[in-house]
């Protein structure tokens, strides 16, 4: 498809340490320019590995990532450097992602110098001021160091630094997870506005399904390195078909005491987060799945298209009841 900004096919990533961890397995994804895709799942599901692979920070063990129809090869350093202008990232920890010894303005200006080679001081200062203003920061804060800023302000600086070069894709890896709820709402709105204004595509990685629902048009659910369900937003949230998606949705604590009481009883004592097994037969979710039958233990379900744009990897998706809220 030529309208595709990002095309991921059969992407697998392995980490080799004392034991082999298969962090991503045969992942397929597409992202059109200007669109937003949410990636959700628990810790260890491969969300961040996916971001790192797309950014060329880890070498895939199999599969292909195509950026605007060109294969992306992390070993091609020169080309990756060019791509940095088009592909930017914002991480979770706003303090950790800024250099504590650089002022906010210098951090943002550095991106401009490194990626565009802009050195004209006046031009740099004006662009930095304009970008800080765009992300809702008083340009006077450019002179401050990260420790003089709040978490929300630091995250705005990180967003300014990532967007000053007008990337076509912004990868947000848990970018609002460390923020207080009122600040989180401000940053969610900011990301939404920036992506609309500049037709910037977003890959929004988060464990917070409610935030993803507000920001992303399409959502992919990862479980132990595989996409288990992918659907347009409204369909995923109103009619999830994978039991894991359902369990995730049911576990989200909603600020509604009435719903909380109703759901309190439905939470079963499944044990903790899953470990990335080397490999087992069958569906990876079957040990925790309330619907698992013999077939689920023996045969791994492939992704099946069940409606336009809605794919699910479950033998029993037809029997997954609509959610209880």
């Amino acid at each position: 498809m030529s309208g595709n900004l990002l095309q991921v096919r059969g992407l697998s990533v392995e980490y080799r340490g004392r034991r082999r961890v298969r962090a991503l397995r045969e992942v397929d994804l597409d992202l059109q320019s200007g669109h937003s895709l949410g990636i959700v799942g628990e810790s260890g599901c491969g969300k961040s590995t996916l971001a790192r692979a797309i950014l060329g920070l880890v070498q895939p063990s199999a599969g292909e990532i195509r950026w605007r129809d060109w294969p992306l090869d992390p070993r091609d350093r020169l080309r990756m450097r060019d791509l940095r202008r088009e592909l930017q990232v914002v991480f979770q920890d706003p303090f950790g992602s800024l250099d504590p010894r650089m002022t906010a303005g210098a951090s943002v200006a550095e991106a401009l110098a490194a990626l565009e080679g802009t050195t004209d001081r006046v031009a740099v200062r004006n662009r930095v001021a304009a970008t800080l203003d765009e992300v809702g920061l008083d340009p006077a804060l450019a002179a401050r160091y990260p420790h003089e800023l709040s978490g929300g302000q630091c995250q705005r600086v990180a967003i300014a630094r990532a967007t000053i070069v007008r990337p076509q894709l912004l990868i947000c890896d848990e970018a609002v997870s460390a923020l207080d709820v009122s600040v989180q709402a401000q940053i969610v709105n900011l990301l939404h506005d920036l992506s609309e204004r500049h037709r910037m595509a977003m890959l929004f990685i988060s464990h917070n399904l409610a935030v993803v629902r507000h920001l992303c048009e399409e959502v992919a659910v990862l479980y132990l390195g595989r996409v288990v369900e992918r659907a347009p937003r409204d369909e995923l949230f109103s009619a999830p078909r994978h039991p894991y998606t359902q369990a995730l949705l049911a576990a989200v604590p909603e600020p509604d005491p009435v719903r909380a009481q109703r759901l309190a009883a439905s939470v079963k004592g499944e044990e903790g987060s899953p470990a990335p097994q080397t490999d087992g037969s069958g569906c990876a979710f079957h040990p925790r799945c309330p619907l698992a039958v013999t077939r689920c233990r023996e045969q791994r379900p492939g992704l099946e298209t069940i409606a336009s744009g809605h794919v699910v990897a479950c033998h029993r998706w037809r029997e997954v009841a609509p959610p209880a809220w």
Partner: protein
Amino acid sequence: MAGARVLRIKDLCVDFDTEQGRVRAVSGVSLEVGQGECLAVVGESGSGKTQSFLACLGLLAANGRVTGSACFEGQELVGASERALDLVRGTRIGMIFQDPMNALTPHLRIGHQLTEVVRARGLMGAEQARRRAVDALVEVGIVDPAARLLQYPFELSGGQQQRVCIAMALMTNPALLIADEPTTALDVTVQAQVLALLRQFRTRGLALVMITHDLGVVAGIADRVAVMYAGRVIETAPVADLFAAPAHPYTAALLDSVPRLAGPSTSRLAGIEGQPPRPHERGPGCPFAPRCTSARTECRTTDPEMRVLGERSVACHAPLHGGWEA
């Protein structure tokens, strides 16, 4: 209130001596929690929710000072000697924190850490402590507890580590458990399990203080809620009332900021403009006035008194949802 009063905090103030002078972090906080009750203390970073309870336990940083009163089972904790506090901390009052990995010592086995308090206090012999540790792990839903005692923290998942921390707090059958953001670092599915566990202990008579910024967590576990802003309690209410009809504009704005799974999805989130005031920047008047959409002149000049109506209270000149004028 569900049962006998376990902890009663009155007019608690916490000050820190800093390079910029003395800074008031907690200002006149009054709270109560009873047997079998869960009080949720909600607020954003810097609202003073954690410092209030650290102050009660005598755990403030060296430059911190506390005044006021915190009465636990009839005993005054503010100004009590370290020795007196040691008889309460970790035995009658348990505490669990946000990050279980940091709460556990990485180089000591789980069993050693679980039994440390009861052995140090001379409450149990080694074998009795070990048996109690196994029971405590069973209570928090850990599979194969005897084997876990020999493991190190890194061998457990985050959820299991937090269960171990809860078990540790429960070793001595405390009357009060203070949980400071206990599920913030956990996945939603694991969070749901840990909350279910805490709910279960509450029904056995444990008083629970849940410090959190997550209103979803509050809705799932609390009986009563205290909302803190800029070092003070600005609203208290039974949980259902608070969510159905918040009285303080800050509470209402906080509820509107939460992204939801239901309802319209494309709309922008409400958010709250601006930032909470820093402790040394507070002027006269209501601390929320600069961000409040319904602020009046008096809000900027006079700090509102706490008004009480039935089981609810609010510190606001113009509470939402009527009935407060009386």
